[in-house]
């Protein structure tokens, strides 16, 4: 490695390089921005994200590897990066006014957001288990901090600590799995793992257990049952804007790593891992959806909803080892992540708009179902956005959620798992109960909801809701784009 190589490689991952440098600079710049004008930091952070987004899009179609095969820049990484960068932008948009009114406006918020996004983008591009781990930590640690950024609010601190402890626990499993895989194959590079496996002479038991542990570690990040327990507490306790970003970004990053590792490195282990994935997906869908019914707090409800959706996306991973379906696995999972991102932000933006009165110690105000009574009359636009989000979560046309679920189920059925598809379908029906309950409250109960009129929040809620509907009508090119993001060994 020479200096020249370094520059070439840094250039290859230019969006990440720029974002990293920008985050470092912003950290220092923020120190000199007065406390009441943190909007500048938000603006600068968004600017950095936009530059990175432009770079990513301008480089779409490039497929290469960097840093001695540690990083793969390909269609998959591009697609995921777009999702992450959009999540970052939306995360900033929903956070700005919310942070001011909650009295927790801090420049670090945006800087940590940028670091976390760098971690996510690295995660999607990582082609080496060590790199994956590095990215995992890089995205997680800022999130731990962000979850507790509302300090000294006790629930925020509690959320941060729980997230950190369990996240460290999970990281340990991931690292142990990596070690076992390395022990079995002699490498942590995905390409070499698969070539070592197929050429034989590998201790398959170690390899399988290593793969299982990696699955556990990443399963924690995406919150699949039984590694989901932290989710409701953290989602509820963390500031809502952090939760919104975390629910989308962390989950998408976790799935990016799962997809890349499993589809690239572990197809030979499909026989062993498929039943595990099957069970994880099934339990996640069932438990996530069933417990969500009992929730009266909207943030907890959405937390369980996000668990359930992790189960749906997990479904796509189940047939990952079948060569003819693998491409669909990736494409339908990516497409669903996109749908999930837009839908989630629509829902969370409405939730944030209704949340209020943070100063009195308790944070439940504006977060129970009853607080949504009458929203249909008072704020038809927000209610409509929320309705669209709920319908999309259920999977009712014309929403992206429907199209995404359709592709997911198609993949699962093509892969030969009709039973799992049936579970997915039935749990979707169950989920209609608690999603539609929100709609019922909004339109059929009278009430005086307290709503903040904040332009960026409104913009996010409406833009994503419109996107959910409009893109569902033009979903074909979107899906084609996702289909091009196939994972290949370079």
């Amino acid at each position, binding site marked *: 490695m020479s200096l020249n190589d370094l520059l070439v490689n840094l250039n290859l991952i230019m969006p990440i390089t720029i974002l990293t440098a920008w985050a*470092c600079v912003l950290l220092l710049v923020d*120190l000199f921005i007065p406390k009441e004008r943190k909007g500048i930091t938000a603006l600068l952070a968004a600017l950095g994200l936009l530059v990175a987004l432009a770079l990513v899009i301008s480089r779409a179609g490039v497929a290469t590897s960097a840093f001695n095969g540690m990083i793969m820049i390909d269609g998959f990484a591009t697609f995921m990066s777009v999702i992450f960068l959009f999540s970052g932008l939306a995360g900033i948009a929903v956070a700005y006014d919310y942070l001011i009114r909650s009295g927790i406006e801090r420049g670090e918020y945006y800087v940590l957001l940028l670091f976390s996004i760098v971690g996510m983008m690295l995660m999607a591009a990582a082609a080496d288990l060590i790199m994956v781990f590095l990215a995992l930590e890089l995205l997680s640690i800022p999130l731990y901090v962000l979850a507790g950024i509302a300090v000294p609010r006790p629930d925020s601190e509690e959320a941060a600590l729980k997230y950190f402890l369990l996240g460290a626990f999970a990281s340990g499993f991931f690292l142990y799995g990596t070690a076992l895989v390395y022990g079995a194959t002699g490498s942590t590079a995905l390409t070499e793992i698969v070539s070592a496996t197929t050429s034989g002479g590998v201790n398959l038991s170690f390899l399988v257990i290593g793969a299982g542990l990696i699955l556990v570690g990443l399963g924690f990040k995406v919150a699949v049952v039984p590694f989901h327990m932290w989710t409701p507490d953290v989602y509820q306790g963390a500031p809502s804007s952090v939760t919104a970003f975390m629910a989308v970004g962390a989950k998408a990053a976790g799935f990016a790593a799962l997809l890349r590792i499993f589809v690239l490195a572990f197809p030979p282990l499909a026989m062993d891992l498929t039943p595990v994935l099957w069970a994880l997906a099934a339990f996640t869908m069932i438990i996530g959806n069933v417990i969500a019914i009992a929730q009266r707090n909207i943030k907890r409800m959405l937390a369980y909803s996000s668990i359930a959706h992790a189960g749906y996306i997990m479904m796509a991973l189940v047939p990952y080892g079948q060569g003819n379906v693998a491409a669909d696995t990736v494409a339908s999972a990516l497409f669903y992540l996109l749908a999930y991102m837009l839908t989630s932000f629509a829902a969370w933006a409405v939730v944030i708009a209704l949340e209020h009165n943070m100063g009195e110690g308790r944070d439940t105000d504006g977060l129970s179902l009853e607080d949504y009574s009458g929203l249909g009359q008072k704020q038809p636009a927000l209610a409509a956005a929320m309705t669209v989000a709920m319908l999309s979560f259920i999977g009712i046309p014309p929403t992206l959620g429907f199209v995404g679920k359709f592709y997911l189920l198609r993949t699962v059925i093509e892969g030969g798992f009709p039973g799992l598809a049936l579970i997915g379908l039935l749990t979707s029906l169950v989920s209609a109960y608690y999603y539609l309950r929100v709609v019922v409250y909004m339109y059929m109960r009278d009430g005086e909801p307290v709503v903040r009129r904040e332009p960026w929040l409104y913009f996010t809620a409406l833009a994503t809701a419109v996107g959910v509907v409009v893109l569902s009508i033009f979903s074909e090119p979107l899906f084609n784009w996702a289909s091009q993001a196939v994972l290949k060994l370079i």
Partner: protein
Amino acid sequence: MLLEYLPIAVLLILALLLAGIVIALGHMFGPRHPTERKSMPYESGMRPIGPGTRRMPVHFYLVAVLFILFDIEVMFFLPWAVIYKKLGVFGLVEMLIFIAILGVGYVYVWKMGALEWE
């Protein structure tokens, strides 16, 4: 492969059994005459004063964490210095980047007032 671990398993079970048996025997045959003194936490024979865990000013932790952070990062200099000549200009630039990132953290910490006592 499980077979290879059989001795360990046997050892584990034997140890657990032995410990359990010894405790059970003591429990069964040992005389028990509990008094207030005996029920107290054992503190080297002294009567315990105050709660078992004592509060410390959080600044101690903060300084300790910052110390460990920078300490460990500075430790990277050592192997780098050993093969510095081999790495050449590339190594120098790498280390400069590393130091720059450290510097950012240092400036941030300083500016945030983490290093000020009170």
